[in-house]
């Protein structure tokens, strides 16, 4: 039973560039959430996708956008990268409507902005 997988594991970009991160949810899950985790901090919710639509969004600017595909996998896009975007980006999957069931996390993509 495959868990949540994310790619790439590490990425280095420069300010102003754009980046795309990818996530495949755990088998059987249909909802994907993205989180940003700065060094020494807890993960912060970015947004959540279900049925290829953004359902909830945290306090992140429009530079952060996403997409969900018919197979439930998801992408996180960040435009006009800033130094402050350096973080571990985590993807979590769950089953829509069963919000008291735990979310399953991938091991993240470490994004470094130079």
């Amino acid at each position, binding site marked *: 039973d495959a868990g949540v997988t994310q790619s790439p594991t590490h990425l280095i970009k420069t300010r102003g560039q754009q980046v795309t991160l990818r996530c495949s949810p755990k088998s059987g899950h249909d909802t994907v959430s993205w989180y940003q985790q700065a060094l020494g901090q*807890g993960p912060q919710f970015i947004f*959540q996708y279900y049925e290829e639509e953004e359902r909830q969004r945290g306090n992140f600017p429009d530079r952060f956008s996403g997409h969900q595909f018919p197979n439930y996998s998801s992408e996180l896009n960040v435009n006009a990268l800033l130094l402050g975007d350096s973080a571990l980006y985590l993807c979590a999957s769950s*089953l829509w409507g069963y*919000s*008291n069931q735990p979310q399953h996390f991938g091991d993240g993509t470490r994004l470094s902005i130079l």
Partner: protein
Amino acid sequence: LAKTTQPISMDSYEGQEVNITCSHNNIATNDYITWYQQFPSQGPRFIIQGYKTKVTNEVASLFIPADRKSSTLSLPRVSLSDTAVYYCLVGDTPGRGKNTGTASKLTFGTGTRLQVTL
């Protein structure tokens, strides 16, 4: 979403029982309490979840008093490999079933950094 407060750090020796208490004074009626464990450069891992009284699984116990304003994660006989950050979260639970609500967005605090030594 209810805010949680937990100690920033704790130290323990291998083989001891560790209890991490989390305060959530504004917990709502439908909120569940969930604990995650996170190792460096890895995603959070689900440990245990409960609503009231006591829940036990193969790795931990969760104690929740009647007023539910706090909860205590208990790790029996910790080992070096239990060194990690532990997060306590509370979240709304609209209910089961595809037509009754959304999937939760989790609100993490800064967590408790547990250091286990020999």
